[in-house]
């Protein structure tokens, strides 16, 4: 699967459409995703970013359109299929079970078993430690309950799980929201690392400063359409703001991001 499509992309979305009653959340979106690239998805509230990544992660079914993964065409996905195809999502908050320990969360859905049923807890703990270390996530004991950890550590576990799930495409939904400066820094570094390690990374974020720092490519959505596909190195905040709002001359970008 790591070979990707013939055109060099790992996933292609074709004409994805989704309506909620009269609300047209996605109006025929086309998007190609490449390995080794950090792609940022930006846009105002209600622009369709969340809906689009939910289609990708299998949480919702599109009304029309195709999802092409590894030369196979799908009309819709579901969470289990998406994970199987290598698409893993790091949710802002919903993804972890607070009352379970780090290892149980890391292996949620793909627990190693012996004799066909016996959970190999030793292996889980050992692998968890290795995985977290490789991602520079500082957690001393994989037996700790996730509910007792800090926001940054939790995000780290969510990322580790996405990788552990065998993900090639890792989607981040507002990774730095509700996080302190230090924790945001850790996560941003982690995302950049993932891109360099050859993963395809999609980041949904409101924070343009973060987006500009970590991404190679920025896609702007507005009213259910993909209105711009920009190379980060060749664009500037004012241009992005223009696409997001449709209004020119915004000087202070923080107003948009807040």
């Amino acid at each position, binding site marked *: 699967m790591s070979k990707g499509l013939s055109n060099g992309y790992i996933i292609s979305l074709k004409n994805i459409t989704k309506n909620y009653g009269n609300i047209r959340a996605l109006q025929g979106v086309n998007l190609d995703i490449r390995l080794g690239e950090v792609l940022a998805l930006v846009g105002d509230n209600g622009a369709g970013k969340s809906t689009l990544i939910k289609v990708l992660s299998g949480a919702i079914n599109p009304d029309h359109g195709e999802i092409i993964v590894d030369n196979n065409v799908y009309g819709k996905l579901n*969470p289990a299929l998406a994970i199987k195809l290598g698409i893993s999502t790091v949710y802002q908050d919903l993804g972890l079970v607070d*009352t379970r320990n780090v290892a*149980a969360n890391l292996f949620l859905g793909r627990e190693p*078993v012996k004799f066909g049923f016996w*959970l190999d807890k030793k292996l889980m703990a050992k692998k968890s430690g290795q995985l977290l270390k490789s991602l520079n996530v500082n957690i001393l004991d994989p037996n700790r309950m996730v509910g*007792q950890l800090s926001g940054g550590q939790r995000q780290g576990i969510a990322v580790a799980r996405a990788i552990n*799930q065998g993900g090639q495409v890792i989607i981040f939904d507002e990774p730095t929201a509700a996080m302190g400066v230090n924790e945001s820094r850790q996560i941003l570094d982690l995302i950049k690392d993932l891109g360099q390690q050859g993963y395809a990374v999609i980041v949904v974020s409101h924070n343009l400063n973060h987006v500009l720092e970590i991404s190679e490519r920025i896609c702007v959505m507005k009213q259910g359409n993909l209105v711009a596909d920009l190379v980060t190195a060749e664009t500037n905040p004012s241009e992005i703001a223009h696409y997001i709002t449709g209004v020119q001359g915004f000087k202070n970008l923080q107003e948009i991001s807040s």
Partner: protein
Amino acid sequence: MKKIIDKSQDYFSQILLGITLLLAIILLSSLSPHFFTWGNIRNILDQSALLVIMGVGMTLVICTAGIDLSIGAVVALSGVCMAVAMHSGIPVEIAILIGLTAGTLVGLMNGFIISAFNINPFIVTLGTMSVTRGIALIITAGIPIYGFGAAFSWLGKAFTWWGSGHIGPVNPPMLIGLGIALLGAIILNYTKLGSYALALGGNEEALHRSGIATKNYKVIIYGICGFTAALAGLVVTARLNTAEPLAGYMFELDAIAAVVLGGTDMKGGRGSISGTVIACLLLGVLRNGLTIMSIPSYYQQLAIGLIILIAVITSELRFRNTLSRSNA
């Protein structure tokens, strides 16, 4: 200030309960010479076994933040099914299988309705409780079915033997209880099913998003609860040599009380079989001990209720304390 949490804290409820159990035994033994005799201990173990059997299934269900109110009625239905089957000439082994199947089906049905239509388990099992009890009453026309010895001499005797026979110094119900408890502990701690049961209670959405077929697992868990209730039905029917349509009256509440007393959280996500087992023994010891002390039933109810409340409050305060410390 982030220390590694002492892992032994996970066993807090069990340790506290174990100490209470020990103290209760010491106290009761010193107050009455009739308490700590093998005959009486066997009574307590025999009586607690029934609660343990039901408690194991209930623990799994409550770990998922669910509840099963139908188990008392399942006890009656499975007993009645076995009794009818035996009276109609079906061999005992098959009759038992029929009874167990009937109970398991009710459990699976609970799980199916809860997950397929996403309805609150309290409401669903309240409904199936009434349906199940109704079926048991209809099958028997409200009259207890008695006597499995006369119709099939040795097979029937074998059946009642299951309830009150002896294997060396112990009774079959104790062995069934022990077996089910061990099996339950293995399921909860060392299988995906148990791991998911606990995770379901913690955050069902997370499992769903990890691609886990949560609905299937829920159906299985409620099915297990139905099975353990049916097994309890087998024990009750065999012990009394009678299948009553009103058997198992309020058993669900006893089982829930034992599970919660054992440190399993009604909100789901935390639970243990060992806690449930110790709680069942504690309840058994208290009921028996208070009777031996000739304490009127009013006070027994009061005492047992208070102990449950205190245990639950203690466990909740401790849990909050653990979580809040990490946010500090």
